[in-house]
C-alpha cells in the first residue's frame, strides 16, 4: 500500500506490501529509499517500539478523533503529521496541520483558577493576560490568542477544573 502524508511540513510517500505486519523484518520504501522495519515491542495499546535498520526506536502515535495519525513521538521527539492519501483503499480529504487561530482557550491539564483579570464582555488585545491557571504548582498565564471581545468566561476564581475545560472564548 502507498501512503502519502506530510511530516514536519515535508512530503513523504511510503510503500508497504499490504500483507505486511512487521512481525518479521520487512522492507519499506520511503521516498524511494529502502529500509528494513521490524516490530520491537507491542501490547494492547499498540506498537511501543520498532527496529528500523536494526536500530530500536521508541514510538508513541498521536491520533485524532477519527483515529488518523496527527503526530508521532520518536524517542521522545515530536513530529506533527498530516495524512493525505492511502492508495486506492482509503481516501481522506486534506487536513491542514495548523488550524487558524481560534479565540477558544481551554485548560490543557487539571488545576485551579487562581486569578481572573477581566470580565465577560471586556475588550481584550492579543497577548493580554486573561487569567492565571495553576497546575502542578506552576502558574500558567492564559493570554488572549486573538484580539476581540470576551464572549464567555467559563470559570470563576478558585474553581478546580479538569483538562480541556473551557476557560474563555474571544470573538
Amino acid at each position: 500500500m502507498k501512503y502519502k502524508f506530510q511530516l514536519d511540513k515535508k512530503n513523504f510517500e511510503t510503500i508497504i506490501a499490504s500483507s505486511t505486519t512487521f512481525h518479521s523484518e520487512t522492507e519499506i520504501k520511503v521516498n524511494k529509499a529502502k529500509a528494513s522495519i521490524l516490530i520491537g515491542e507491542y501490547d494492547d495499546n499498540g506498537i511501543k517500539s520498532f527496529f528500523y535498520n536494526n536500530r530500536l526506536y521508541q514510538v508513541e502515535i498521536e491520533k485524532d478523533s477519527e483515529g488518523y495519525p496527527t503526530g508521532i513521538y520518536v524517542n521522545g521527539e515530536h513530529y506533527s503529521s498530516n495524512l493525505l492519501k492511502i492508495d486506492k483503499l482509503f481516501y481522506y480529504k486534506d487536513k491542514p496541520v495548523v488550524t487558524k487561530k481560534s479565540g477558544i482557550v481551554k485548560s490543557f491539564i487539571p488545576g485551579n483558577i487562581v486569578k481572573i483579570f477581566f470580565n465577560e464582555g471586556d475588550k481584550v488585545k492579543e497577548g493580554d493576560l486573561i487569567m492565571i491557571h495553576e497546575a502542578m504548582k506552576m502558574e500558567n498565564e492564559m493570554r488572549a490568542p486573538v484580539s476581540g471581545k470576551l464572549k464567555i468566561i467559563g470559570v470563576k476564581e478558585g474553581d478546580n477544573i479538569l483538562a480541556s475545560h473551557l476557560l474563555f472564548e474571544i470573538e
Partner: protein
Amino acid sequence: MIKNSTKKKILIPNRGVIALDIIDSMKSIGLETILLHSPEDSNSLAVKMACRSYKFLSSKLEDSYMDREAIIEKALELDVDYIHPGYGFLAEDPEFFRLCEEKNIEVVGPGSKLLKLVENKIELRQIAEDLGIRVIKYSGVIKSSLDFEKIPPTFNYPLILKPLKGLGGKGIKVVEDRQKGEERVNKMLQREWIKNTGIFAEEYFPEAHNIEIPFIRDIDGNILFLPEIESSIQRRFQKIFQESPSVNISDTLRESLYEDSRRIIEEIKFVGLGYTEFLISNGASYFSEINPSYQINALIPEVHIIANFLKKQFAISNGELLHDVKGVKIVKPKYSVLLVSLMAENPLDNFQPSSGVLSEFFKYSTIRNIFKTSLYTGAKVSPLYDPYIGKIVTFAIKRKNSINDMNNFLSNIIIKGIRTNLNFLRFVLESNCLASGDTTINFLNNKCRFADRKKSEEEIQVAASLLSAAFHIDNRKKNYKEKLEHMKQPGFLRRLFKKF
C-alpha cells in the same frame, strides 16, 4: 523481617523524592519512619518504603501537606520523637516550627526564630549591608502602586519583582520598564497570598551567575563549607542544571564568598544545614538570600564528601557536633559534579506540565552517577503537584567527561505515559555555551533555545517510516476486525489477535 517496638519514631509529612530520601536515611539509622500522605499519593513509592503510613483525608494542599494543625495533632497522637518537614511545603515555615516547639516536638531544622528572620528577604539584606557585604540593590516593601512609584530612579531596569515571602520561583516576575512594572505590581497585589506580605523589587542581572554556598553549622559554631554550586541555568526561576564547582569564579572571589557567608550566618547564629545565595556580575558578588532547609541540590555536596546530609542535618539539629571540624572547614572539590532536574513537562509545548501514569520506565545505573526518582512503572504523576519527578547527578574529574556521562546516562532512560524534559536536558548538555561554561541566568532565554533545534533529514525520514508502518498495522487490524465480525468467527478472531 519485621522490626519495630522500642524504636524512636520520626514523622514525615512530605512526598516525592525528598520523602524517599528521608525514609531511607532515617530507617538506616534505626528510626521508625511514619509517613503522612495525601489520598492522591496512596500508591507512591514513599508509602511502599515507609515503616508505617497514615493518610490525610483530603489531597488539597492546605488540608494535607500544608495543614500544620493536622500534622501536629497526628504527631502527638502517635507520640513521635521527631518530625522531618523535608523540602518545600512547611520546611521553611516559621509558624509550623513555632507550633512544634510549643508542643515540644523535635522538628528537624534551624528553629522558628531563625526561619522567621531568614524569611524576610529585606531584613536579611539589611543585616548583610550592616556587615558591609554588597547586596543586590533592593526596594522597600511594596503593598501598593504608590509604594512602587517611590522606587528611586537610581534603580536600573529591568527590575525583578518578588513576593516578600515567596518559595522557589513562585510569583517572581521581570519587568522591562517602569510602566510595565506598575501594571505587574497591580496584578500581583490582586493575589491574596502576595497582598498580605507584599512585594519587593531588585535590579535584575540577566548576564549574572547564580552561586550557592552549602554549609552546616553546629551549636558550638563550627562551620563546614562545601564547594559552591552554580545554579544559573533556570527556567521560570526553577533550577534545571546545576554544577559544582562553578567555572565562573576566581579563587579570590570564592574566598570572599566563604568569608561573607561565614559573617552572615555567624551574625544570625544559624545552626543547621543551609545555603547562602549570591549573584555574580562582572566579577563582583552580591548577597541575595539564605535557603534554610535541605534542598534538591544537597545531592551535590553529598557527592563531594560522600556523606548523607539528611543524617548530618538530623545529628546537628539534635545538638551533635560536626566530626573533625574545629572552627571553619572548607571542602575542596575533587570532582566536577553535575545535577539535572527531571521534570514532567513538555518542552515541545512551552513546558506545559504533563501528568499521567507511567506505562514504561527503564534506566540503567552505573558507577559515578545517581538517579533519585519517585517514578516506577505504573506510578501516577499527579496534576496536583510540582512536575519535579527526579534528579540525576554525575561526577568526574574533568567537567567535560561529567557532561558526557550525564548525556550518556540520560540517553539510557526510557519514560512513556508522560512527557518529560529529558531531550531538552540532553539538548542543553550538548550546547556549546554550556561546554564553554557560559552559563548565565538568561541562558535558556538567549543562548540555548530548545525550539531552535533542527531535526536532521534522516531523523524525519525515520519518523515518516515509523508513522506509516504503525498506521499500516492499525489499519490491517481494523480491517480484519470488520471482516471477521461479518464472518462471525470470534474464535478465529481471538486466535488471530493473539499475534498483535
